[in-house]
């Protein structure tokens, strides 16, 4: 009625969500996999953020165009170049930091797009049923059985060098079916639950039922899938780049590996080969561990809600 009461209500609403998040966080934190994964990810995040610093210190630390004027070939670690330089005197450490930025960019944006697409199509198929469902799921099947890397390689061979965003988009377009299958299954079972009938009796329209009642129940699952999709997106981009089909304008870890290989330093310059290789493995591993931990946060909650509520 008065201002004060309204404020109190807003506060109560906020604390409700805070409590729920706090509870999830507690479960998450108990999980060692989750802790390791998160720590690693924070490290990579810091690397990505710090990638802006070296070029500001000295233009020769620019990962793509900066060349140390005194160095003509690959050199090992030194005070001037912590991880050494590549074949034309570019700083490997600066490249590694830039690679983290690209990995996040590619991984997260491709996964995000795949998950948004997969969730939207999965919910539509599950909720509408009938012909829509059949068509969407057949399309999903067809895309799912195509080996993503191979198809993207073929496209790259056809159209020449691909822009990094084109690569992201293609990964997203090839990676939604898995998400949509899971979301569809979840939607099918949610649709049968009595609270959907209750919402209909409360006057909810179809869009409202989908977005207000079904979506909050599939989103946690979709987010879980997102972490796994990040992993696969990063791996696909790295593979493309390594095989020489990456965006020549970006410094990704896969690109670095390609440079190592192409210039014949594969087993001569461990300081050059190992860092990007390790980074690719660790970042995919950490997203995977994050996903597993989230799975455990989610699981008891899903279990609670389906049995006792």
């Amino acid at each position, binding site marked *: *009625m008065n201002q004060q*009461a*309204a404020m*109190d*209500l807003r506060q*109560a*609403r906020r*604390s*409700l969500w805070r409590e*729920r998040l706090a509870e999830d966080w507690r479960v998450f934190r108990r999980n060692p996999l989750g802790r390791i994964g998160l720590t690693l990810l924070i490290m990579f995040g810091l690397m990505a953020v710090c990638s802006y610093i070296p070029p500001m210190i000295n233009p020769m630390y620019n990962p793509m165009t900066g060349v140390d004027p005194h160095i003509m070939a690959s050199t090992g670690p030194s005070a001037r170049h912590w991880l050494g330089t590549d074949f034309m005197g570019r700083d490997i450490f600066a490249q590694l930091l830039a690679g983290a930025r690209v990995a996040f960019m590619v991984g997260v944006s491709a996964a995000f797009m795949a998950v948004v697409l997969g969730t939207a199509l999965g919910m539509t198929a599950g909720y509408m049923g009938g012909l829509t469902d059949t068509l969407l799921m057949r399309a999903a099947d067809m895309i799912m059985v195509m080996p993503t890397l191979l198809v993207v390689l073929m496209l790259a061979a056809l159209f020449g060098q691909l822009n990094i965003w084109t690569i992201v988009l293609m990964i997203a377009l090839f990676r939604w079916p898995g998400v949509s299958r899971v979301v569809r299954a979840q939607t099918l079972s949610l649709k049968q*639950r*009595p*609270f959907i*009938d*209750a*919402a*209909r*009796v*409360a*006057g*909810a*329209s179809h869009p*409202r039922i989908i977005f*207000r*009642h079904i979506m*909050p*129940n599939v989103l946690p699952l979709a987010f879980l899938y997102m972490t796994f999709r990040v992993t696969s997106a990063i791996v696909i981009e790295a593979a493309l780049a390594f095989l020489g089909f990456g965006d020549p304008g970006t410094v990704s870890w896969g690109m670095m590996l390609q440079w190592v290989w192409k210039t014949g330093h594969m087993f001569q310059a461990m300081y050059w080969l190992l860092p990007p290789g390790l980074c690719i493995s660790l970042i995919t591993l950490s997203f995977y561990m994050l996903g597993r931990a989230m799975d455990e946060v989610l699981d008891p909650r899903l279990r*609670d*809600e389906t049995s*006792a*509520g």
Partner: protein
Amino acid sequence: MSSAQETILELRQVTKRYQTRGNILGRGKKEVLALNRISLQVRAGEIFGLVGESGSGKTTAGRLIVGLEKPDEGGIFLNGQDIVGLQGKALRRYRRQVQMVFQDPYQSFNPQVSIMDSVGEPLLTQGVAKGVEREQMVLAALKEAGLSPAESYAFRFPHQLSGGQRQRVAIARAMILEPSLLVADEPTSMLDASYSAQIFDLLLGVRGRLGATVLFITHSLASARYLCDRVAVIYRGNLMEIGPAQEVIRNPRHPYTQALLDATPKFGRCEDIPRFNTLLRAERPAADSGVGCGFFRRCGLAQRARCSMEAPEFRAMGEGHLCACHYAEPGPAQADQGGECHLGA
């Protein structure tokens, strides 16, 4: 009350069939007749009981009435208007007048939606109120439903409430638009007895305060007698007996109602209530498809020649008391001993 005689809801020859799914080859596919040509009228302002055992089609009737499903045949009328097949806006408008409390309070709330938003949903969808005004109305509704302090319940998720509390919330949600008809589908079947009485009183309050009509669905004669003005007894989709609650329950004329009363635990001075023993221990083989009395297979009084061949018509057993049985007779009114004999759950 003169308005008590007006019909608010009428079911006319309503039939609903369900197709049960067989295996992949379509074998084992069967048709279930959930409601078989049910006709009844509910009067404005009364609490009308729909009584029957599990699987008799009570929930189905409720779902048809709130428009969650369509009957295969027959018409459903609210204030004389046919509501079968309403869609979109018209259906939404209809739901301002007719609301439902579902059988299972654990399943009828979205686990991801707070109590505040669940109860306030009809206000939003019907464009009645939003923002702070909506929240105030929700709090008021929760208080009316006996949840106070309402603020402490509003900002919780369903899993943080007990079953009884949830059923109160369900009643608050159903009543927030002040509908003229409330369908309450066994609101206490998932709760323990001590909580049932409170929910019943809440329903009585709903009728008293807002003048709403209540269609109370139950499997228990005892709660029907406690709450209802009139009751209808159904068995496997067939209407068996209908009449004033006291009359039907104290003086049942249909063998099925009699069997239900036999099965109800009684305490107090009940020597005067006879046992009817109208239920067969084992079911008889079915009557030839569809014709005949719906209760034939389990009826102790049935005669094959007649009951398996001819569907009984409703006949008057007393003031407003109808019974569909070939062998029912208007019995002598029971001596007034009801005050001392109590029925258990």
